[in-house]
């Protein structure tokens, strides 16, 4: 029996002053962005090729966010909770795989069999992240399932910091640079080859995920639990196993995202999970949390806005070093989405369940 929340200020009997203020702030921000874009475009500081590069980079970055976002969205679908530690799951795969990549590089195998190495790295990273995700679920979430909402949220924050500083302790706080993969150097038409690798990798992973969810019994169980946990349990679905599978699949994709991220950005370190984690969460909410295509689209949209935004919105005002405001844009989108359209672009798939 969900109690309906008033979703917009119009549904209330009278116009609440607090909502009016919020909407005004939103409108002002939109105005700033719009005026800034117009000013930038009129100034004509950037060429079309530069804009195109921004967008391509944004899509590459966004497709990585999309992979991570799927993990958030799936867990949200089955558990109605945000796995705060998911960014760290992503980081753990990338960090651990660095040592494998480094070893392969030094032994010369990477140069001799680049494709095999790449696939091996992706799988290894996926498996590491999967293990971490399953462990987090087992230790920090499962014993507390059904406790007040605040409780698993706090353990999730705890798990996140525990993982970050465990990796810092294990591997040190320095930045590690992934070895370059020779076949992925250079450009192909307007794309960097690494970007193409990312697109292909993400596309294949998404396809496999869809097949898994639609065509296997485990996928069916996950969908059933996401739809209605009680009913699924009554129909003989092993809810615990479905939840673990969800974490495992989400973790695996985060691990793959970790290596792809390392291909694009080269550097990894223990804190690298925080920002992509938050941004992927933003992407998940943007697309409508619990909604798989939404997460993918949200990731792409966020990636492009983040890549284009600083130059487009702020250069027109003559703001110095606008690229520093990239993360401000991402966080602002996050906050605005949560305020104005918590159901996301495509709407959330939560049935009649009460929303957070």
């Amino acid at each position, binding site marked *: 029996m969900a109690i309906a929340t008033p979703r917009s200020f119009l549904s209330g009997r009278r116009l609440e002053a607090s909502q009016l203020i919020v909407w005004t702030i939103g409108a002002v921000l939109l105005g700033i962005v719009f005026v800034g874009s117009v000013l930038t475009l009129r100034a004509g500081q950037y060429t079309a090729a530069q804009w195109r590069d921004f967008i391509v980079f944004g899509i590459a970055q966004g497709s990585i966010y999309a992979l991570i976002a799927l993990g958030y969205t799936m867990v949200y679908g089955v558990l109605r909770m945000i796995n705060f530690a998911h960014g760290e799951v992503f980081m753990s795969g990338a960090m651990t795989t660095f040592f494998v990549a480094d070893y392969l590089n030094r032994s010369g195998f990477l140069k001799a069999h680049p494709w095999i190495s790449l696939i091996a790295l992706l799988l290894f990273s996926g498996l590491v992240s999967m293990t971490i995700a399953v462990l987090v679920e087992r*230790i920090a979430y499962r014993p507390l399932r059904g406790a007040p909402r605040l409780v698993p949220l706090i353990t999730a924050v*705890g798990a996140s910091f525990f993982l970050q500083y465990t990796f810092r302790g294990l591997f040190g706080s320095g930045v590690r640079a992934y070895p370059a993969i020779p076949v992925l150097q250079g450009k192909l038409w307007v794309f960097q080859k690494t970007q193409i690798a990312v697109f292909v990798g993400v596309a294949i992973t998404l396809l496999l995920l869809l097949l898994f969810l639609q065509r296997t019994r485990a996928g069916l169980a996950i969908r059933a639990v996401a739809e209605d946990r009680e009913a699924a*349990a009554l129909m003989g679905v092993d809810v615990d196993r479905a939840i673990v599978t969800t974490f495992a699949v989400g973790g695996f994709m985060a691990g793959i995202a970790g290596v792809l991220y390392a291909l694009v950005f080269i550097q990894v370190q223990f804190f690298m999970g925080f920002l992509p984690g938050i941004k992927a969460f933003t992407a998940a909410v943007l697309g409508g949390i619990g909604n798989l295509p939404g997460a993918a689209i949200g990731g792409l949209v966020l990636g492009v806005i983040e890549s284009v935004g600083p130059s487009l919105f702020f250069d027109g005002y003559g703001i110095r070093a606008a690229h520093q405001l990239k993360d401000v844009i991402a966080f602002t989108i996050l906050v605005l989405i949560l305020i104005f359209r918590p159901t996301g672009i495509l709407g959330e798939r939560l049935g009649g369940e009460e929303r957070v």
Partner: protein
Amino acid sequence: MSLAALRRALFIGLLGGLAVWHLSLVGLIPAFAQRRLIGETVTFSYALLVALFALVAHATGRRYAGALQRVAWGTLSALSTGLLVLALALIVTQVNLRQIFLNATPDLARVLTFGAGVSPAGVLRTILIAAVAGVASGGLGATPAPWGRVSVFAALATLLLGLLRDVLGPILPSGLVGFLYGAAGLNVLGAAVTFVLFFLLFALRWSLPGRAGTGRIIELVPSPVRAPVTRLAVILFLASVPLWAGLFLSNVADFVGFYILMGLGLNLVLGFAGLLDLGYVAFFAVGAYTMAVLTSPEIGQRFTLDFWVALPIAIMLTVFAGLLVGLPVLRMRGDYLAIATLGFGEIVRLLVLSDWLKPYLGGAQGVTRIARPQIGPLRIDSPQEFYVLVLFSCLLAWFLSIRLRDSRLGRAWFAIREDEFVAQAMGINRVTAKLSAFAIGASFGGLSGALFASLVGSVVPASFSLLVSINVVALLVLGGMGSLPGVVIGALALVGIPELLREFQEYRLLVYGIVLIAMMLFRPAGLLPERIHRRELEEAVEEVREVAPAEIAPGRS
């Protein structure tokens, strides 16, 4: 039956072993090897290892009623942990893993074998220590009610005293220091005497029914003035801190005070109203930066205000910031609220850091030359003098918290925490209640930030990262959300101890993570729970535990 017991004992032993592996490879155990607690031999690392053995033995043994079973299974568990410890020591010496694991050094092996190295003697020593710790832990667990706890607490207190040698050394009378302490840590005689004293103290405290031990002393005071007298005594003690504490300790006390202030502020939001704010650092930052910008001559040369003028402005601005954050998130709860507030906190930090606002906020270099407060001819300059100001602020915040808790508004917050919709149906104005929680909570953070800026004399964006928010949440969770004494205990444990122990700094956040998870799993209401909250949280978690994992979670229809 016996096979199940064996498996259980070995499983718990394995978990303990994994914990040692983790703590060793992360570097915690080797880092503490230099910190001697008692004599030349007992270092912090050894104490940690022994404590783990004892904990493992206790976790296994506590299921059994018979003393013999307790000791036997507990010792078996501790021994299996000991074997895993040895295995790690062996691996570390045989295989060179330093390229990957920074802390997999031969030094680690020496620490893990209690100084003997990987040799027959070292193996024997580790096994023997594990066995002794297991037997002792099992045996203590089998003793009648208060004695096990009394001995454990006495041992912990003794170790703590050894740990704080460098801190207490300059404060205590030199004769006592000479008697208790050696070159590093307690000397053996001092340790023995301390242990016996603490043992007697705790025995007195717990063996008498109903707190009679402390009660008898307090009863000497006639009842109408009892409460004011105790209160006065506590305040006088707190006020006397700068007289006997040195520069270093006063500085630490000031920092604990800043976190107590923030803790009390977040307590209104998280503890009372049940709204998890992960961006609390934003208010601390607003307070600090307002103070910095208004009083430092570096920015906006034309106006440098006095501390006492800037302080109320800083607080007003944080209240405003609290409203600004509170307004948009009014309709959010739980996860979304946490993430949105986290977003606000990060936005504030990123803006402060940016070159764009550098002319106004100093950018990455921050702002220096912030004014110190001045009362008439008296300039408050040193940490000792500052302490008075911090103490006064904390007492004020404490007083306000109590008054708010018992007020109509406080009741409204509790109602919202329990069930927002029912609260609304009961006629509570959700908007007003939530906004006032954010605004008042923010003002405490702003006060804390303003004082912080003034004491340190400079602000840099790095001091206002997410970690501060996590720190405040962790200290609330440790002490018990909603509990005022809990805030103080949490701040002392999570801010005071790391400030006192340099080695600890690096592992601070790791420990916070463990604290957050462990508290929620084992003691969700905190160390010093607030009365109402305790009942609810414990009931809720009990309920979950009773339902088998495969079944449906209750209360979500």
